[in-house]
């Protein structure tokens, strides 16, 4: 009997996986993300420090792509290819941690304001709606202007400003679940707040939060690149946005230095698109078609 049951559990799990696999775009996105993550982890170990040190590079600046530097060099003579590879880490790190922060805050606020009634919930809802309307990126820009430059600031600025949509969604889902008869049944059985949240609300919120987090990473990476482009990034780190900041600052456009402009931008688009595609495929797994 237990083997029969185990088989049943396995087939349920594989049902979700096969739904995901049927979304080819999602699979492609996942593959891209695996490659990007590997690059981000391995690259810093392989790239010699000299190659990225402005004071020690030997190549000429603004070199077009060629045999030696196949993506050319930047305004200081560093290899653009190496810069892009090196920048992956920063973008992914900021994207993931900021999304984690935002989704964490959002989930907490959403469940609290959805489950508990009363003044606290009302106030939380009010604050959520307020921040939902405000332009998150503008707030993030303001925050990172007043705080000292650094990786932590960027993460904080993006995380603290992009939680409301998650909170909104989690709250809606919490309310939906709490309106279901099975929650009433749980209450009638004598279950308290902890029981209802832990056994019924959280398990149904988690899959949606996961989808939301994947999409939040995409937004956070774009936000990071925008902050870095505006010169608000960590000046000691290489990131794709910071490269574009340099490109703008040193006139890559008028010089037609396409090799300095294209690679970091394409990298952002590809990674962000990959997260989006994975998120949409996960969404399809989580919410079955009617």
């Amino acid at each position, binding site marked *: 009997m237990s083997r029969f049951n185990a088989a049943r559990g396995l087939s349920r799990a594989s049902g979700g996986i096969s739904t995901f696999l049927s979304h080819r775009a999602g699979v492609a996105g996942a593959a891209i993300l695996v490659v990007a993550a590997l690059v981000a982890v391995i690259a810093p170990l392989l790239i010699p420090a000299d190659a990225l040190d402005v004071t020690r590079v030997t190549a000429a600046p603004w070199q077009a792509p060629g045999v030696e530097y196949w993506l050319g060099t930047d305004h200081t003579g560093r290899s653009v290819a190496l810069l892009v590879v090196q920048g992956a880490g920063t973008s992914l790190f900021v994207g993931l941690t900021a999304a984690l922060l935002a989704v964490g805050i959002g989930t907490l606020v959403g469940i609290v304001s959805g489950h508990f009634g009363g003044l606290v919930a009302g106030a939380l809802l009010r604050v959520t709606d307020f921040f939902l*309307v405000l332009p998150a990126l*503008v707030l993030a820009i303001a925050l990172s202007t007043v705080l000292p430059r650094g990786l932590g600031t960027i993460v904080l600025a993006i995380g603290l400003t992009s939680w409301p949509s998650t909170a909104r969604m989690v709250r809606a889902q919490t309310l939906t679940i709490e309106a279901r008869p099975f929650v009433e049944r749980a209450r009638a059985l004598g279950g308290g707040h902890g029981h209802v949240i832990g056994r019924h609300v959280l398990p149904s919120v988690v899959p949606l939060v996961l989808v939301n987090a994947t999409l939040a990473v995409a937004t956070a990476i774009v936000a990071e690149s925008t902050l870095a482009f505006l010169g608000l990034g960590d000046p000691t780190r290489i990131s794709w946005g910071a490269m574009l900041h340099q*490109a703008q600052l040193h006139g890559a*456009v008028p010089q037609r230095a396409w090799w300095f*402009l294209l690679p970091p*931008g394409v990298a952002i688009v590809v990674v962000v*698109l990959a997260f989006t595609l994975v998120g949409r495929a996960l969404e399809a797994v989580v919410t079955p078609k009617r």
Partner: protein
Amino acid sequence: MRLAGRLGGAALSLVMVAVLGFFLFRVVPGDPVVSMTRGRPTTAAMQAELRAQFGLDRPLLSQFWGYFTSLLQGDLGTSFTFRRPVADVILERLGPTLLLVGTSTLIAVGLGLWLGVRAAWRRDSAFDKATTGVALTLWAVPTFWLGMLLMMVTGDLFPSRGMRDTDTAPDFVSQALDVGHHLVLPSITLVAVVCAEYMLVMRSSLLEEMHAPYLTTARAKGLRDDLVRRRHAVPNAVLPAITLVFLRFGLVVAGAITTETVFSWPGLGLLFYDALTGPDYFLLQGLLVCTAGAVVVMNLLAELLYGVLDPRVKVV
């Protein structure tokens, strides 16, 4: 919800905007005056004057009261870099931004909603797949990068800096043509990014309605497919889409900052960039309060408009 409730909510939001603007620039670790004057030749007297202007020598509550009362009178303080009242500087730059954002939003909304309807109605068709793919890609594109790319690709075809040339004839027609010429690239940039969002919103909104039973009723009545869509599906689906369009107005604002920065378009976005590179806290505070306030007001308008359009919502 009642009209009074809506207005009260919006008023409360505006107060919250003011509070936010105040505290955002009081959480600065260290002395804001020092960080503002860093790298500039300043005397102790100038710093003291600045400190007095911020009111940093007074208790927090009294600081806030002073800030709040002058805000109500339209006084946003004095810009450190421009040495003029912040309100004046902002008003001066409002026109170009309204022109850019207004043009782009109109085009983006029209195009986005139309594409969204087309894509959703023929779900999984080649058209749907192509437009959704393009929209998702555009959604992943940072606005500023798209601007830079456009600039590089078009070369000298369109002017890429500022809003008008200095040597244009002073008559109205030449001036308007010149501004229009300058407007092309920035507005394409803004439209491309924002339109993708609107298209996706409209598409999913219509997809939600696609299985509604009243569409079966309409078909059973003998309506042609395009009439079912035009008369029944779209009027229902466009309502939630409109709310979302207004809710995403913040996106346009954020897009305007980077677009104006890339193209040196002399509007509020470029002013924002100037304020943050300063940094000029008074200017930044003023800009933040103004844009956030504008977004709150836009949202109120959206709710009122929704009440007029959707008979199920009673606003008055």
